[in-house]
């Protein structure tokens, strides 16, 4: 085990001969040619596969009265109908996670009530429609509270169906706010969102000799293995999870979902492998989503722009015992200011389970905070970039003794303003025009914590001098394969093309997995540890002092000798495994990533349609391991930010209690025609406190603040301040330039 408890010193990664280069994905060709097999496509890994089709509850709350499956069972090809009555023993986790198979109680709409297993997908689907299910409905709560103006629960105040979950104070906010010469108080609303990753949840499950094997779409192989072992009451070592390719996740595949559990249940029952993929209309209510939020921001400042009082309160929804969307967390750390208050409440709702989605907390939180900052800048008559620079802090505002490890937000802001041509922004909203289009610019700061977690990997020097990397790390389209190969190539001095990377198998060492933008830094750091061990083993074999050994060009040189790595291997490959673990550097130092986002938007003066013209994100996220894959992460995030700001909303039927627009025709995500010119600039400031890689996460940072920058650009274009996302044209129509002759 390598313990990382002191800032990294110079190491081979700093050479950046391979790491830090804009290498194309090593798995790219496999994907573009269809050779990369995703879970549902593993047709030949085990014979005799059957198909499961999941049936979701048609009510949001209540009880199943009866399920009549006779017609389904009579259908040719149908093998079994799994319901709560015959599924066999399982132990559900509870604690805010609804049962994977409902019965008799229904906890949310489209909670699974049955799985029809058949010889073909078509028979299973047809059988599903033949089930006759009757319910007793029960009332439920489906909307966040509507609070009257002036009413907001005090930080620790509990109300019926509304629980205080987290609050934090520094200094005396109320007194400072009352005394502040310039004040802003506003409320904002963000919408329920669906991850809408390309590959829906899918699994093939197979039992043999009491052991369960799953080919599944998961971000976290280790979590999936542990969860399944608990569910079925077996040893972790009796569960094997295989997920070499995963078609996106955005948090939707952090925890296992009904596809995995029902496939495993059904396979146990029918004694054959069962494959289950959720259809898109099922994904949105059956699995998880990001909760909508209500947010209240109060900012008090001196006339020179220095913040003296910052309060950010929020309400999100979830099933009882579920977790909240921590929308106020970044507000503890983004700006200086002596008096602070942050508080979250959770409304108990009977909607499907809310859970993590890309940048949980920061993504919706910054959509409020960073619009409030724009409103404050206007109230101060100050440039929004300047306001943020003035309130920069190099330490935790709650604990000045705790510095940021690296923080270059000001450089992000200045670089971005310069490169974007921010000085051309009109300071009077609604005054720039291009024909029928109102033009405006907006910006916002971005913030996302950097999380360090242990991660292990194995590296093997093969007989031919090539390297094989093995770890249960996943590549969910992010580029893990590539940056791991780059890390191994750099550490052992082997060309990139001589490194094979094998991922996503619970038989491999346990990694950090993909999520929370922690994957890249920690997984490569775990591999770094394994590489250090392999280097030591090689030096020991050669009796070569480690300090003198140089690994380059497929050979090790030192103490007057040069040995080809291929010559070292006799009968058996040389294998090294290790794990990185972290000390308290993330406690002594606040580790985070920063961004400045700039947007130019056009709003049609007649219809209120929004078309973005340019976007720029400047990111400070430690060493950028691969500028090409990192850039694609940020561009993807910016695109997701367009969705959150302008169109994405799971619309709730507040009577029936479900997300109505549950397919990709109704739930609109951005298409190419929505995307403007998108530019990304990375400030390359390695962070010695984060890991030996000196890298940090970037996959979520790109989303943090984008929505607010868009909202601010719309305001600058139109003079209309929208505070309820998505910012669709209905909110603008009445306030666009009037139609009276000669027209707008």
């Amino acid at each position: 085990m390598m313990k990382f408890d002191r800032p990294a010193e110079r190491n081979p990664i700093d050479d950046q001969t391979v790491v830090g280069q804009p290498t194309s994905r090593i798995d790219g060709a496999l994907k573009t040619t269809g050779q990369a097999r995703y879970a549902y496509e593993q047709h030949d890994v085990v014979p005799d596969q059957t198909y499961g089709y999941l049936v979701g509850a048609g009510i949001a709350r209540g009880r199943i009265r009866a399920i009549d499956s006779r017609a389904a069972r009579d259908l040719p090809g149908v093998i079994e109908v799994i319901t709560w009555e015959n599924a066999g023993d399982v132990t559900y986790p509870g604690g805010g996670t609804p049962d994977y198979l409902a019965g008799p109680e229904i906890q949310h709409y489209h909670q699974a009530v049955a799985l029809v297993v058949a010889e073909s997908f078509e028979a299973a689907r047809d059988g599903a429609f033949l089930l006759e299910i009757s319910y007793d409905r029960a009332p439920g709560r489906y909307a966040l509270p509507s609070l009257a103006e002036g009413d907001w629960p005090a930080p620790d105040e509990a109300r019926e169906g509304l629980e205080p979950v987290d609050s934090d104070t520094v200094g005396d906010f109320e007194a400072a706010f009352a005394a502040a010469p310039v004040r802003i108080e506003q409320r904002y609303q963000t919408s329920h969102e669906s991850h809408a990753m390309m590959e829906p949840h899918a699994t093939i499950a197979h039992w043999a000799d009491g052991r369960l094997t799953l080919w599944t779409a998961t971000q976290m192989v280790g979590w999936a293995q542990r969860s399944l072992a608990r569910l079925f009451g077996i040893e972790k070592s009796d569960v094997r999870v295989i997920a070499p390719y995963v078609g996106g996740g955005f948090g939707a595949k952090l925890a296992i979902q009904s596809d995995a559990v029902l496939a495993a249940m059904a396979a146990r029952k029918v004694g054959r492998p069962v494959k289950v993929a959720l259809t898109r209309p099922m994904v949105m209510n059956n699995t998880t989503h990001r909760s909508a939020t209500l947010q209240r921001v109060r900012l008090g400042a001196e006339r020179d722009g220095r913040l003296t009082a910052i309060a950010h309160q929020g309400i999100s929804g979830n099933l009882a015992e579920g977790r909240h969307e921590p929308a106020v967390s970044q507000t503890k750390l983004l700006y200086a200011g002596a008096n602070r208050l942050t508080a979250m409440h959770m409304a108990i709702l009977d909607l499907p389970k809310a859970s993590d989605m890309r940048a949980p907390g920061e993504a919706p939180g910054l959509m409020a905070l960073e619009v409030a900052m724009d409103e404050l800048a206007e109230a101060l008559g100050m440039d929004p970039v300047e306001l943020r620079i003035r309130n920069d802090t190099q330490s935790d505002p709650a604990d000045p003794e705790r510095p940021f490890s690296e923080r270059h937000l000001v450089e992000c802001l200045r670089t971005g303003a310069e490169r974007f041509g921010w000085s051309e922004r009109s300071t009077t909203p609604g005054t720039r025009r291009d024909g029928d289009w109102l033009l405006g610019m907006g910006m916002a700061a971005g913030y996302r914590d950097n999380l360090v977690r242990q991660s292990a990997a194995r590296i093997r020097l093969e007989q031919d001098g090539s390297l094989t990397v093995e770890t249960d790390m996943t590549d969910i389209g992010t580029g893990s394969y590539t940056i791991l190969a780059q890390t191994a190539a750099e550490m052992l001095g082997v060309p990139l093309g001589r490194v094979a990377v094998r991922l996503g198998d619970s038989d491999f060492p346990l990694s950090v997995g993909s999520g929370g933008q922690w994957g890249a830094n920690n997984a490569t750091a775990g591999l770094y540890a394994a590489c250090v061990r392999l280097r030591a083993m090689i030096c020991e074999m050669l009796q070569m002092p480690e300090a003198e050994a140089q690994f380059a060009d497929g050979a090790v040189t030192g103490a007057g000798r040069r040995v080809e790595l291929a010559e070292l291997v006799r009968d058996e490959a040389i294998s090294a495994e290790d794990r990185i673990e972290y000390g308290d550097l993330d406690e002594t130092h606040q580790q985070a990533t920063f961004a400045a986002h700039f947007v130019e938007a056009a709003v049609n003066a007649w219809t209120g349609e929004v078309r973005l013209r340019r976007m720029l994100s400047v990111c400070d996220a430690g060493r950028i391991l691969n500028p090409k894959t990192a850039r694609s992460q940020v561009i993807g995030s910016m695109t997701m930010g367009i969705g959150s700001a302008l169109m994405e909303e799971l619309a709730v039927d507040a009577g029936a209690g479900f997300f109505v627009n549950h397919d990709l025709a109704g739930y609109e995500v951005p298409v190419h025609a929505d995307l403007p010119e998108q530019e990304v600039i990375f400030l390359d400031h390695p962070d010695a406190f984060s890991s030996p890689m000196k890298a940090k996460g970037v996959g979520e940072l790109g989303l943090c603040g984008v929505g607010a920058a868009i909202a601010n650009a719309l305001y600058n274009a139109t003079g209309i301040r929208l505070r309820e996302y998505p910012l669709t044209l209905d909110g603008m129509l009445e306030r666009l330039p009037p139609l009276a002759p000669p027209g707008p």
Partner: protein
Amino acid sequence: MKAFSYERARSPQQAAAVVAANPEARFIAGGTNLIDLMKLQIEAPRHLVDVQDLDLHRIEAKEDGGLRIGALVSNTALATDERIRRDYGAVARAIMAGASGQLRNKATTAGNLLQRTRCPYFYDTAQRCNKRAPGSGCAAIEGFSRGLGVIGTSEHCIATYPGDMAVALRLFETVVETVDAEGAVRMIPLAEFHRLPGTTPERDTVLEQGEFITAVHLGPPPEGRQFYQKVRDRASYAFALVSVAALLRPDGTGRVAFGGVAPRPWRVEEAEELLPQGARAVTDRAFRDARPTAGNAFKLPLATRTLAYVMAQAKG
């Protein structure tokens, strides 16, 4: 999808006869709407008559100066036809504003007219929907209705006809030509083709079971500039919140049809007479009897502003 039998039509009349004789039979053309609905068992035909081999792929000039468009002309072929682009530009633009390239390649002229609503409750078989399951009720009226109709609706259904092409076709003297099992030809003005829901929202059009569309006739190209302006939340690949098809003459007169607002392309001749008085006068009249929900009332000012936008373009 229920198991179904399948045959390929040999002639329009033969196809009509098969479908007329079997209430559980349907024609299938491009299949881009019907197959989606079959997967969800919103439609569950037991027999399909595939009409793609029929000789209905041509666009022919008519003696009166108009065009006869074969029922199987693809949306792409229609939108790129030289005569359509020159004389019926609004139709070309409406088609190109819809769906995606792949879908337009497959979709046919007749199928496009007959595409079913996009009401989200219609798509969820656990929900009440009079159009899908007559008599079950309408979940949308009290529910999420942002995309649904504001006029021509009833207390039984507030769904819209979602398509674009038919809205533009309303600007011209458009007539739908059909044939029935006996070979009788019927000429149905497009104005009367789509039904208002009333108490029977399950019937979208006036077609009888087995009545087969053979062609769509366009009257001679009229004077004036043509427009199709489609407004939606994202820039492409979405159905209209509101669309405006317009034919505007230099003297300020013209024709206007609205999409995304009603169970059929919405054209009110008396409203068009008010064009010289400006957009608001037209929409005030065209939407005089509107009954929007709280969730879709914005479509009324949006229709006014979109028409004003189009009229400004005509001047500019």
